[in-house]
Protein backbone atom coordinates (compact mmCIF):
# COMPACT_ATOMS: atom_id res chain seq x y z
CA UNK A 1 0.00 0.00 0.00
CA UNK A 2 1.01 3.59 -0.10
CA UNK A 3 3.42 5.32 2.20
CA UNK A 4 0.93 8.09 2.88
CA UNK A 5 -1.29 7.02 5.76
CA UNK A 6 -3.81 9.28 7.35
CA UNK A 7 -7.39 9.08 8.51
CA UNK A 8 -10.20 10.94 6.75
CA UNK A 9 -10.40 13.65 9.39
CA UNK A 10 -6.73 14.65 9.43
CA UNK A 11 -5.64 17.37 6.96
CA UNK A 12 -3.58 16.28 3.95
CA UNK A 13 0.12 17.03 4.22
CA UNK A 14 1.12 19.09 1.20
CA UNK A 15 4.85 18.87 0.51
CA UNK A 16 6.43 22.00 -1.04
CA UNK A 17 7.67 21.81 -4.62
CA UNK A 18 11.23 20.68 -5.30
CA UNK A 19 12.71 23.24 -7.75
CA UNK A 20 15.28 20.68 -8.93
CA UNK A 21 12.54 18.34 -10.18
CA UNK A 22 10.72 21.11 -12.02
CA UNK A 23 14.01 22.17 -13.58
CA UNK A 24 14.54 18.64 -14.90
CA UNK A 25 11.00 18.57 -16.37
CA UNK A 26 11.62 21.89 -18.13
CA UNK A 27 14.98 20.66 -19.43
CA UNK A 28 13.32 17.64 -21.08
CA UNK A 29 10.63 19.96 -22.48
CA UNK A 30 13.27 22.15 -24.14
CA UNK A 31 15.04 19.11 -25.60
CA UNK A 32 11.80 17.69 -27.07
CA UNK A 33 10.86 21.10 -28.47
CA UNK A 34 14.31 21.74 -29.94
CA UNK A 35 14.54 18.29 -31.58
CA UNK A 36 11.08 18.74 -33.14
CA UNK A 37 12.10 22.19 -34.39
CA UNK A 38 15.29 20.75 -35.97
CA UNK A 39 13.24 18.02 -37.69
CA UNK A 40 10.77 20.58 -39.01
CA UNK A 41 13.50 22.88 -40.37
CA UNK A 42 15.37 19.97 -42.01
CA UNK A 43 12.09 18.81 -43.63
CA UNK A 44 11.68 22.26 -45.18
CA UNK A 45 15.28 22.85 -46.26
CA UNK A 46 16.51 19.51 -47.64
CA UNK A 47 15.36 17.31 -50.52
CA UNK A 48 14.24 13.88 -49.37
CA UNK A 49 17.18 11.45 -49.34
CA UNK A 50 18.27 8.38 -47.33
CA UNK A 51 20.59 10.42 -45.09
CA UNK A 52 17.78 12.77 -44.17
CA UNK A 53 15.56 9.78 -43.37
CA UNK A 54 18.32 8.37 -41.16
CA UNK A 55 18.57 11.72 -39.36
CA UNK A 56 14.79 11.76 -38.77
CA UNK A 57 14.87 8.20 -37.42
CA UNK A 58 17.76 9.00 -35.06
CA UNK A 59 16.07 12.17 -33.78
CA UNK A 60 12.84 10.20 -33.26
CA UNK A 61 14.77 7.79 -31.07
CA UNK A 62 16.23 10.71 -29.09
CA UNK A 63 12.68 11.94 -28.41
CA UNK A 64 11.52 8.40 -27.57
CA UNK A 65 14.30 8.09 -25.02
CA UNK A 66 13.37 11.31 -23.23
CA UNK A 67 9.61 10.62 -23.23
CA UNK A 68 9.94 7.04 -21.99
CA UNK A 69 12.90 7.46 -19.63
CA UNK A 70 11.98 10.81 -18.05
CA UNK A 71 8.28 11.55 -18.61
CA UNK A 72 7.19 7.93 -18.16
CA UNK A 73 9.83 7.55 -15.48
CA UNK A 74 11.07 4.19 -16.79
CA UNK A 75 14.72 5.13 -16.22
CA UNK A 76 14.03 5.27 -12.48
CA UNK A 77 12.30 1.87 -12.26
CA UNK A 78 14.13 -1.36 -11.33
CA UNK A 79 16.23 -3.00 -14.06
CA UNK A 80 13.91 -6.01 -14.43
CA UNK A 81 10.99 -3.73 -15.28
CA UNK A 82 13.07 -1.67 -17.72
CA UNK A 83 14.19 -4.76 -19.62
CA UNK A 84 10.73 -6.39 -19.58
CA UNK A 85 9.48 -3.38 -21.52
CA UNK A 86 12.50 -2.77 -23.75
CA UNK A 87 13.42 -6.30 -24.84
CA UNK A 88 10.02 -7.20 -26.41
CA UNK A 89 10.38 -4.22 -28.76
CA UNK A 90 13.03 -6.34 -30.54
CA UNK A 91 10.04 -8.07 -32.18
CA UNK A 92 9.03 -4.70 -33.60
CA UNK A 93 12.53 -4.18 -35.03
CA UNK A 94 12.24 -7.58 -36.70
CA UNK A 95 8.78 -6.68 -38.06
CA UNK A 96 10.14 -3.46 -39.58
CA UNK A 97 13.05 -5.23 -41.24
CA UNK A 98 10.94 -8.13 -42.51
CA UNK A 99 8.13 -6.05 -43.99
CA UNK A 100 10.35 -3.40 -45.57
CA UNK A 101 12.30 -6.16 -47.32
CA UNK A 102 9.03 -7.81 -48.31
CA UNK A 103 7.75 -4.47 -49.64
CA UNK A 104 10.88 -4.00 -51.75
CA UNK A 105 10.46 -7.49 -53.12
CA UNK A 106 6.79 -6.89 -53.99
CA UNK A 107 7.83 -3.70 -55.78
CA UNK A 108 10.44 -5.54 -57.84
CA UNK A 109 7.95 -8.24 -58.80
CA UNK A 110 5.41 -5.64 -59.89
CA UNK A 111 8.02 -3.92 -62.06
CA UNK A 112 9.05 -7.25 -63.54
CA UNK A 113 5.49 -8.39 -64.29
CA UNK A 114 3.91 -5.13 -65.49
CA UNK A 115 6.83 -3.54 -67.36
Amino acid at each position, binding site marked *: *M*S*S*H*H*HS*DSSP*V*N*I*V*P*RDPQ*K*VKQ*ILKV*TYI*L*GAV*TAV*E*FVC*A*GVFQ*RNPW*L*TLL*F*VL*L*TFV*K*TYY*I*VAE*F*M*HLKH*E*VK*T*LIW*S*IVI*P*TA*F*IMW*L*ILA*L*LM*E*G*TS*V*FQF*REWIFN
Partner: protein
Amino acid sequence: MAHSATLDQNSGNIWNGGAEPLKASWGKLMMWFFLLSDAISFSGLLVTYGFSRFSHSAYDPNIHGLKFEFSDLYWPIPEKVFTHIPFWHIDAPLVFVGIMTFILILSSVTMVLAVEAGHRMDKEEVKKWMLWTILGGFAFLGCQAWEWTIFIQGSEHGRTLLDGTKVFGANLHINEYGPQLFADLFFFITGFHGTHVLSGVLINIIVFYNVCLGTYDKVGNYEMIEKVGLYWHFVDLVWVFVFTFFYLV
Protein backbone atom coordinates in the same frame (compact mmCIF):
# COMPACT_ATOMS: atom_id res chain seq x y z
CA MET B 1 -3.85 -1.58 7.11
CA ALA B 2 -4.36 -5.31 6.81
CA HIS B 3 -2.37 -5.65 3.62
CA SER B 4 0.73 -3.89 4.91
CA ALA B 5 0.58 -5.97 8.07
CA THR B 6 0.74 -9.12 5.94
CA LEU B 7 3.68 -7.64 4.07
CA ASP B 8 5.65 -7.06 7.27
CA GLN B 9 4.90 -10.55 8.52
CA ASN B 10 6.26 -12.21 5.39
CA SER B 11 9.25 -9.98 4.86
CA GLY B 12 11.60 -12.80 5.91
CA ASN B 13 10.62 -15.25 3.17
CA ILE B 14 9.78 -14.06 -0.35
CA TRP B 15 8.10 -17.40 -1.22
CA ASN B 16 5.28 -16.61 1.19
CA GLY B 17 4.00 -13.93 -1.16
CA GLY B 18 3.70 -10.21 -0.69
CA ALA B 19 7.03 -9.59 -2.42
CA GLU B 20 7.26 -6.89 -5.12
CA PRO B 21 10.09 -7.89 -7.45
CA LEU B 22 9.39 -5.00 -9.86
CA LYS B 23 8.96 -2.43 -7.06
CA ALA B 24 5.84 -1.02 -8.71
CA SER B 25 2.15 -1.41 -7.96
CA TRP B 26 0.12 -3.92 -9.98
CA GLY B 27 -1.87 -1.07 -11.52
CA LYS B 28 1.23 0.57 -12.95
CA LEU B 29 2.58 -2.76 -14.19
CA MET B 30 -0.71 -3.53 -15.96
CA MET B 31 -0.56 -0.12 -17.62
CA TRP B 32 3.03 -0.73 -18.74
CA PHE B 33 2.26 -4.10 -20.30
CA PHE B 34 -0.91 -2.80 -21.88
CA LEU B 35 1.14 0.01 -23.43
CA LEU B 36 3.68 -2.52 -24.71
CA SER B 37 0.90 -4.44 -26.48
CA ASP B 38 -0.56 -1.17 -27.78
CA ALA B 39 2.90 -0.22 -29.08
CA ILE B 40 2.87 -3.46 -31.07
CA SER B 41 -0.58 -2.58 -32.52
CA PHE B 42 0.64 0.82 -33.63
CA SER B 43 3.83 -0.72 -35.02
CA GLY B 44 1.65 -3.03 -37.09
CA LEU B 45 -0.07 -0.02 -38.66
CA LEU B 46 3.07 2.04 -39.21
CA VAL B 47 5.03 -0.92 -40.60
CA THR B 48 2.12 -1.61 -42.97
CA TYR B 49 2.56 1.97 -44.17
CA GLY B 50 6.28 1.27 -44.73
CA PHE B 51 5.46 -1.96 -46.56
CA SER B 52 2.94 -0.21 -48.84
CA ARG B 53 5.29 2.65 -49.58
CA PHE B 54 8.19 0.34 -50.39
CA SER B 55 5.99 -1.73 -52.71
CA HIS B 56 5.08 1.37 -54.77
CA SER B 57 7.28 3.54 -56.99
CA ALA B 58 8.80 6.56 -55.33
CA TYR B 59 8.55 9.98 -56.99
CA ASP B 60 11.62 10.59 -59.14
CA PRO B 61 11.99 13.99 -60.89
CA ASN B 62 14.07 12.41 -63.69
CA ILE B 63 11.25 10.02 -64.62
CA HIS B 64 8.03 11.71 -63.53
CA GLY B 65 8.82 15.34 -64.37
CA LEU B 66 10.46 18.08 -62.35
CA LYS B 67 7.18 19.45 -61.00
CA PHE B 68 5.64 17.12 -58.43
CA GLU B 69 2.02 16.30 -59.18
CA PHE B 70 -0.39 13.89 -57.54
CA SER B 71 -0.49 10.61 -59.45
CA ASP B 72 -1.41 6.94 -59.11
CA LEU B 73 2.00 6.07 -60.53
CA TYR B 74 4.00 6.83 -57.38
CA TRP B 75 3.63 7.28 -53.64
CA PRO B 76 3.12 10.97 -52.79
CA ILE B 77 5.65 13.00 -50.81
CA PRO B 78 3.63 13.78 -47.64
CA GLU B 79 5.15 17.26 -47.52
CA LYS B 80 3.33 18.04 -50.79
CA VAL B 81 0.00 16.79 -49.41
CA PHE B 82 -0.15 18.47 -46.01
CA THR B 83 0.43 22.09 -46.93
CA HIS B 84 -2.62 23.82 -45.44
CA ILE B 85 -3.05 25.91 -42.35
CA PRO B 86 -6.35 27.37 -41.15
CA PHE B 87 -7.41 30.86 -42.32
CA TRP B 88 -4.47 31.48 -44.66
CA HIS B 89 -4.38 30.53 -48.31
CA ILE B 90 -0.65 29.94 -48.43
CA ASP B 91 1.59 26.98 -49.13
CA ALA B 92 2.85 25.97 -45.66
CA PRO B 93 4.14 22.39 -45.79
CA LEU B 94 3.96 20.53 -42.48
CA VAL B 95 3.45 23.71 -40.45
CA PHE B 96 0.09 22.60 -39.09
CA VAL B 97 1.25 19.10 -38.06
CA GLY B 98 4.28 20.78 -36.49
CA ILE B 99 1.91 22.87 -34.37
CA MET B 100 -0.09 19.74 -33.48
CA THR B 101 3.13 18.04 -32.38
CA PHE B 102 3.99 20.97 -30.10
CA ILE B 103 0.48 20.97 -28.61
CA LEU B 104 0.78 17.29 -27.72
CA ILE B 105 4.29 17.65 -26.28
CA LEU B 106 3.12 20.57 -24.14
CA SER B 107 0.13 18.63 -22.87
CA SER B 108 2.55 15.85 -21.95
CA VAL B 109 4.58 18.37 -19.95
CA THR B 110 1.51 19.58 -18.05
CA MET B 111 0.73 15.93 -17.31
CA VAL B 112 4.21 15.41 -15.81
CA LEU B 113 3.62 18.49 -13.67
CA ALA B 114 0.29 17.01 -12.52
CA VAL B 115 2.05 13.78 -11.53
CA GLU B 116 4.72 15.79 -9.71
CA ALA B 117 2.05 17.72 -7.81
CA GLY B 118 0.32 14.43 -6.99
CA HIS B 119 3.48 13.10 -5.35
CA ARG B 120 3.32 16.14 -3.08
CA MET B 121 -0.41 15.61 -2.32
CA ASP B 122 -1.03 19.11 -3.68
CA LYS B 123 -4.66 18.81 -4.80
CA GLU B 124 -5.03 22.33 -6.17
CA GLU B 125 -1.92 22.01 -8.36
CA VAL B 126 -3.02 18.59 -9.64
CA LYS B 127 -6.36 20.13 -10.59
CA LYS B 128 -4.68 22.98 -12.43
CA TRP B 129 -2.29 20.81 -14.45
CA MET B 130 -4.90 18.14 -15.23
CA LEU B 131 -7.14 20.86 -16.61
CA TRP B 132 -4.34 22.16 -18.86
CA THR B 133 -3.69 18.60 -20.04
CA ILE B 134 -7.37 18.10 -20.91
CA LEU B 135 -7.36 21.43 -22.75
CA GLY B 136 -4.27 20.36 -24.74
CA GLY B 137 -6.02 17.12 -25.65
CA PHE B 138 -9.09 18.97 -26.94
CA ALA B 139 -6.88 21.40 -28.88
CA PHE B 140 -5.14 18.47 -30.56
CA LEU B 141 -8.45 16.76 -31.41
CA GLY B 142 -9.75 20.01 -32.88
CA CYS B 143 -6.64 20.30 -35.06
CA GLN B 144 -7.07 16.72 -36.21
CA ALA B 145 -10.72 17.29 -37.12
CA TRP B 146 -9.64 20.23 -39.27
CA GLU B 147 -6.81 18.20 -40.81
CA TRP B 148 -9.22 15.39 -41.77
CA THR B 149 -11.72 17.87 -43.22
CA ILE B 150 -9.07 19.38 -45.52
CA PHE B 151 -7.78 15.94 -46.50
CA ILE B 152 -11.29 14.70 -47.32
CA GLN B 153 -12.29 17.84 -49.27
CA GLY B 154 -9.13 17.93 -51.37
CA SER B 155 -7.63 20.67 -53.51
CA GLU B 156 -9.58 23.26 -55.51
CA HIS B 157 -8.72 21.80 -58.90
CA GLY B 158 -8.70 18.13 -57.99
CA ARG B 159 -6.95 15.50 -60.07
CA THR B 160 -8.05 14.33 -63.52
CA LEU B 161 -7.96 10.57 -63.93
CA LEU B 162 -7.02 8.78 -67.18
CA ASP B 163 -10.71 8.34 -68.13
CA GLY B 164 -11.29 12.10 -67.79
CA THR B 165 -13.19 12.08 -64.50
CA LYS B 166 -12.05 14.37 -61.70
CA VAL B 167 -11.47 13.35 -58.10
CA PHE B 168 -11.36 15.71 -55.17
CA GLY B 169 -9.82 14.77 -51.85
CA ALA B 170 -9.81 11.29 -50.44
CA ASN B 171 -11.91 8.65 -48.74
CA LEU B 172 -11.70 4.87 -48.66
CA HIS B 173 -12.70 4.67 -52.37
CA ILE B 174 -10.89 7.53 -54.07
CA ASN B 175 -7.64 9.33 -53.44
CA GLU B 176 -6.64 12.54 -55.16
CA TYR B 177 -3.16 12.44 -53.66
CA GLY B 178 -1.90 9.14 -55.07
CA PRO B 179 -2.34 5.38 -54.57
CA GLN B 180 -5.50 4.45 -52.64
CA LEU B 181 -3.50 2.83 -49.83
CA PHE B 182 -1.99 6.21 -48.92
CA ALA B 183 -5.41 7.61 -48.05
CA ASP B 184 -6.57 4.40 -46.36
CA LEU B 185 -3.51 4.35 -44.11
CA PHE B 186 -3.87 8.05 -43.36
CA PHE B 187 -7.37 7.41 -42.02
CA PHE B 188 -6.40 4.24 -40.16
CA ILE B 189 -3.20 5.50 -38.55
CA THR B 190 -4.23 9.03 -37.59
CA GLY B 191 -7.71 7.72 -36.76
CA PHE B 192 -6.43 5.01 -34.43
CA HIS B 193 -4.17 7.56 -32.78
CA GLY B 194 -6.97 10.13 -32.56
CA THR B 195 -9.19 7.52 -30.89
CA HIS B 196 -6.46 7.03 -28.32
CA VAL B 197 -6.28 10.79 -27.72
CA LEU B 198 -10.06 10.95 -27.35
CA SER B 199 -10.15 8.09 -24.83
CA GLY B 200 -7.18 9.68 -23.04
CA VAL B 201 -9.07 12.96 -22.74
CA LEU B 202 -12.15 11.14 -21.39
CA ILE B 203 -10.06 9.23 -18.83
CA ASN B 204 -8.32 12.47 -17.85
CA ILE B 205 -11.72 14.12 -17.32
CA ILE B 206 -12.89 11.26 -15.08
CA VAL B 207 -9.68 11.45 -13.06
CA PHE B 208 -9.92 15.26 -12.87
CA TYR B 209 -13.47 14.86 -11.52
CA ASN B 210 -12.18 12.42 -8.90
CA VAL B 211 -9.41 14.82 -7.92
CA CYS B 212 -12.07 17.51 -7.38
CA LEU B 213 -14.14 15.12 -5.27
CA GLY B 214 -11.08 14.48 -3.11
CA THR B 215 -11.05 10.74 -3.94
CA TYR B 216 -7.26 10.49 -3.98
CA ASP B 217 -6.88 12.42 -0.73
CA LYS B 218 -9.17 9.79 0.81
CA VAL B 219 -7.23 6.92 -0.79
CA GLY B 220 -4.05 8.50 0.54
CA ASN B 221 -2.10 8.77 -2.73
CA TYR B 222 -2.33 10.17 -6.25
CA GLU B 223 -1.07 7.09 -8.06
CA MET B 224 -4.03 7.23 -10.45
CA ILE B 225 -2.50 10.40 -11.95
CA GLU B 226 0.68 8.41 -12.65
CA LYS B 227 -1.25 5.64 -14.38
CA VAL B 228 -3.27 7.92 -16.65
CA GLY B 229 -0.05 9.92 -17.11
CA LEU B 230 1.67 6.82 -18.52
CA TYR B 231 -1.17 6.40 -21.02
CA TRP B 232 -1.09 10.06 -21.99
CA HIS B 233 2.69 10.07 -22.54
CA PHE B 234 2.36 6.94 -24.64
CA VAL B 235 -0.19 8.68 -26.87
CA ASP B 236 2.28 11.56 -27.23
CA LEU B 237 5.06 9.08 -28.07
CA VAL B 238 2.97 7.45 -30.78
CA TRP B 239 2.38 10.86 -32.33
CA VAL B 240 6.14 11.43 -32.37
CA PHE B 241 6.40 8.29 -34.52
CA VAL B 242 3.42 9.20 -36.71
CA PHE B 243 4.93 12.66 -37.23
CA THR B 244 8.25 11.17 -38.40
CA PHE B 245 7.07 8.20 -40.42
CA PHE B 246 3.86 9.54 -41.91
CA TYR B 247 4.60 13.24 -42.37
CA LEU B 248 8.37 13.87 -42.43
CA VAL B 249 9.98 11.09 -44.46
